[in-house]
């Protein structure tokens, strides 16, 4: 049986965006107050994990 490969970069980006979107949603609903002190590392983590995943996984 042929097993379909999972794209790890897309998976990691998806999880990152899900978390990031959750934070944005919480801010929009006034559950939290997002500041740059929190946004900057969050955005760097999001971009960084996508770049790392893209760099470390190999596409055949």
């Amino acid at each position, binding site marked *: 049986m042929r097993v379909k490969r999972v794209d790890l970069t897309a998976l990691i980006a998806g999880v990152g965006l899900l978390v990031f979107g959750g934070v*944005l949603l919480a801010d929009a609903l006034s559950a939290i107050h997002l500041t740059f002190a929190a946004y900057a590392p969050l955005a760097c983590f999001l971009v960084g994990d996508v770049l790392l995943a893209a760099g470390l996984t190999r596409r055949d």
Partner: protein
Amino acid sequence: MVRDRPAVDPLLTMTDDTNPPEKPPEPGPEDPTREQPVPEPPTTPHEEPRRLYRSRSDKVIAGVCSGIANYFRIDPVIVRVLAVALIFLGGAGVFAYIAAWLLMPNEGEGGGPAEGPSRALTVAGAIVLIIAIAIAFPFHGNWWGGGWSFVPLGVIALAGLLVWRVASGERPQGDARAIVRAIGLGVAILAGCILLAFGAAWAAAAGGNGVVAGFVVAAGLALIVGAFVSPRAARWMIVPALAVALPAGAVAAANIDVKGGYGDRTYRPATSAAVRDHYRLGAGKLVVDLRAAHLTPGDHAIKLDVGVGEAQLVVPPNVCVSSDTHLGIGGVQVFKRDTGGVDVDHQDERFAPPGTPRVVVDANIGIGAFTIHHRPDQGWRRTLGNLACA
């Protein structure tokens, strides 16, 4: 890359399957050609496309110049001289060299996907490079002459390549045309994503932040599902999804609200009663000039909201000002005092002596500047302080 080919008779390689060659006549005992070798048919050399490789044997830094010279079959010194000239003439040579370093496979690697550690180093290098550019850009003047005018082109090309690599998960096959095609596609994706980013930022700032946040969550879920169901399609969604999420986050962090419209607005109330309690502007310059208002003794609370831009409060010297300022990114100057940065909370609580009017300002600026002074045309060195306060 030279593919493995099955060992076949050279004669057969030159024949057409549909028209097999006539079988040579069986030589008879009296045939004079019996002992002679069969002549080799003329063969045409197999035309492999030329590949662009980084040279391993003749390199100064990464073998890029030597590889290009091998591709064009010229002396590597010529390419090296041109590369150095490009660095000093415009600076584009630096970016072109780094881009070539990132994309050209090493001699012998065959242009296929690089091995894991090599790719990791490549991506790490790209990240370090982007950080270096971001740090270096604001602090340099024109010491390269007009050289910096070329730099944005290099940055755009490099960004396009990075976008293409993240989106496709592949690397160009070492062919110069493939690299140019990748740059073009990457830049096109980048341009589309910039438009998307502006749209998302505007939507979030115009009150649709909940909708944009919901879109980001949905994009995350789609990527997770797509990673299993359709990996290739999912991969192309990553960059556009980031282009929506990141600006929306910046808008939320700066607390930008552009519902108040945009442009330059100046308010000069002529009486104390005409002073509003709330002035608002989405984007632009907001000036509230109270010099003609003849404020009555006592407190006058004013709230100022500017999404992106500048806010100025001008007061006469006989008015005391107590201020509480919040800025996402930017600077605040209250008479002779100033501060700035990100997430700025500046409080300057003052009290007025009896019989003196006091303006209590609550200012919220998303990205921009806020100034309180006595004369708009006066520099901060010459401006008077908050002298009317106790």
